[in-house]
């Protein structure tokens, strides 16, 4: 729990600083307060109104939106966290997500299969392509010594350029039916859609549970298996790990394959759960957000899950702030500020070290 302290404090300070920024920009304290209240209601549901009217959509819709966004943030956050475990900084989650999304959209639209098989296959394809994209950067790192931060940044733009400026507008473009022109790829078949849980009230789908299950699975893998332990050794001291007989290259490749697969799955979940096709541009930078989620979550898979739940909820609430003149990207500002604060490593180390109890942060 001590490890979570810097994160919790950072998020709280970020919320406060953003509030001051909002009040300052809007020039009205009351309006900023209303916007924050709207964000809260959009995040966890408008409970007073629910008790008044008894309409379940007043709470189910916001919670569903929060869960949908949290699922994507969890997956990309896990992706970055897993790469961190072996000491690599995967800035490329965005690119891996883009190629994963495309794979899911392609399988979803081009194949005809019975439902459970179709969804599974589309998700697997997303994970596989995401994995391959991550392994490109890993291969360059292991065998050519190219720093992964640079190579993954480059691969992000390669992915976006190739997918959005070639495939989506070229070979995979949806054929216009009748008079309405279409953007993006063809709509996926109903058999490939991730099932929705409370279909009439919210967009919450199976993706949320997949994300939570994967967070638990990654935790078990990291904490309870030999491979996870060895990966951690590789991340902390690669030379010592190698001397101790850990197959370093294999552990790095393995972790990056998982990392890419998780980011690819985020793309797959986005397409099969809510977008239902690859749109003209994948506007949401969930891959970049994953960096913030993983780091605010202190690189721990469950920390990433918790952070993703908080920011997923805030983001769902963000859309409700528009009424008060606050753009829906406002929660991203809070998230960025929280990351900046978490980044001041030495500050937190000193703060935590001052406390009497033993056992500092590593």
């Amino acid at each position, binding site marked *: 729990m001590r490890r979570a302290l810097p994160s919790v404090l950072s998020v709280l300070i970020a919320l406060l600083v953003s509030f001051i*920024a*909002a009040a300052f*920009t*809007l020039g009205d304290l009351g309006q900023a307060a209303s916007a924050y209240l709207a964000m809260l209601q959009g995040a966890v549901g408008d409970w007073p109104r629910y008790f008044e009217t008894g309409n379940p959509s007043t709470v189910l819709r916001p919670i569903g939106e929060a869960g949908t966004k949290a699922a994507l943030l969890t997956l990309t956050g896990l992706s970055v966290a897993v790469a961190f475990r072996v000491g690599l*900084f995967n*800035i490329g989650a965005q690119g891996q997500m883009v190629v994963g999304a495309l794979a899911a959209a392609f399988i979803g639209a081009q194949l005809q299969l019975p439902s459970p098989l179709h969804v599974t296959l589309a998700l697997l394809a997303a994970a596989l392509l995401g994995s391959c994209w991550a392994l490109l950067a890993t291969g*360059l790192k292991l*065998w*050519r*010594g*190219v*720093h992964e*931060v*640079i*190579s993954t*940044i*480059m*691969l*992000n*733009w*390669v992915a976006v*350029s*190739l*997918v*959005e*400026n*070639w*495939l989506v*507008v*070229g070979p995979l473009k949806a054929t216009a039916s009748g008079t309405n022109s279409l953007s993006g790829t063809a709509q996926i078949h109903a058999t490939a859609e991730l099932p929705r849980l409370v279909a009439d009230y919210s967009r919450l789908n199976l993706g949320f549970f997949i994300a939570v299950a994967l967070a638990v699975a990654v935790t078990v893998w990291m904490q309870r298996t030999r491979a996870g332990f060895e990966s951690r050794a590789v991340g902390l001291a690669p030379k010592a790990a190698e001397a101790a007989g850990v197959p370093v290259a294999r552990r790095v490749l393995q972790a990056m394959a998982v990392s890419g697969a998780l980011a690819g799955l985020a793309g797959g979940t986005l397409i099969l759960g809510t977008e239902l096709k690859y749109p003209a541009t994948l506007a949401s*930078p969930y891959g*970049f*957000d994953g*960096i*913030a989620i993983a*780091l605010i979550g202190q690189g721990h898979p469950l920390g990433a899950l918790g952070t993703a739940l908080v920011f997923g909820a805030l983001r769902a609430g963000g859309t409700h702030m528009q009424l008060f*003149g*606050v*753009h829906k*990207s*406002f929660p*991203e*500002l809070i*998230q*960025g*500020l929280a*990351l*900046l604060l978490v*980044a*001041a*490593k*030495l*500050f937190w180390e000193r703060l935590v070290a001052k406390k009497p109890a033993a056992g500092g942060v590593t």
Partner: protein
Amino acid sequence: MLQVLDALLKSTLEAAPALVFAALGAVISERAGVVNVGIEGMMRAGAFAAAVAALVMPTPAGVVVGMLAGATLALLHAWLCIRWRADQVVSGMAINLVMLALGTFVLEARFSPNGTPSIAQLDRYLTGVPFIGGFTALTVLALAAPFALHGVIQRTRFGLRLRAAGEKPQAVAAMGVSVSRLRYLAVVCSGLLAGLGGATLSVAVLDRFEHHMPSGLGFMAVAAMVFGRWTPLGAAGAALFFSFGSALRIGLTSSAPGVLEVVPQGFLMALPYLLTLALLAAQKKGAGQAPAALGTPYDPELR
């Protein structure tokens, strides 16, 4: 034919300054040993601040405000990285995320969703003269700055110390020179240049701040720096080359759409990044050109 060349040159030199300034900014910070992937965010700050400032003051003064905005963010980056030993990539990415959201938020709250109101662009000289005419002072500056920075880094005492801070900071400290101060200075200069690059977008390329600025140009500047092997002349050359590539692509789209049937536009857009990757992969392993102490916070207790 001459007209085509003229148009290509014009559009290259129109687009290049922003990228050149930002790439030089990246070089100066990284040569001192501080990774700067926050260039994108600093450019965004510069573009926004310049466009807003130019609403109430002469445009050249707006450019200075843009530079200061970039420098302010850079100071924050330096403070986190040097004082608090933050992971430099994390801090840079955090700055990008904050600026992406903050820019959108302030734009929506204070101006229109798409952009700020139009301002007077910087003056253009010798308009109508082929090849050399029609540019702003920033284009001239962008062509001169790489040589100036090259001179400073390679030929002055300050430049030597700056490089040493990035290669072997302990040696700098042993000389009695403060590593922190050198690094602060380098990162702030980097922010000034990134801010200038951003300002170029909003006062010379366009005449306002648009919501998506600088749309990845900051990352391309980092690519240019790597492609140019962390040297001012190399980085500027790469920036010019990338700009020429995009000028060629845009020119082709409008004048010869047939070419794009054969080579899809997406390939052309991916090309600078693919080239950078290929170049890095082709280098001998371990013979990387990156400064030796790049990314490591200076710890005086380590030898």
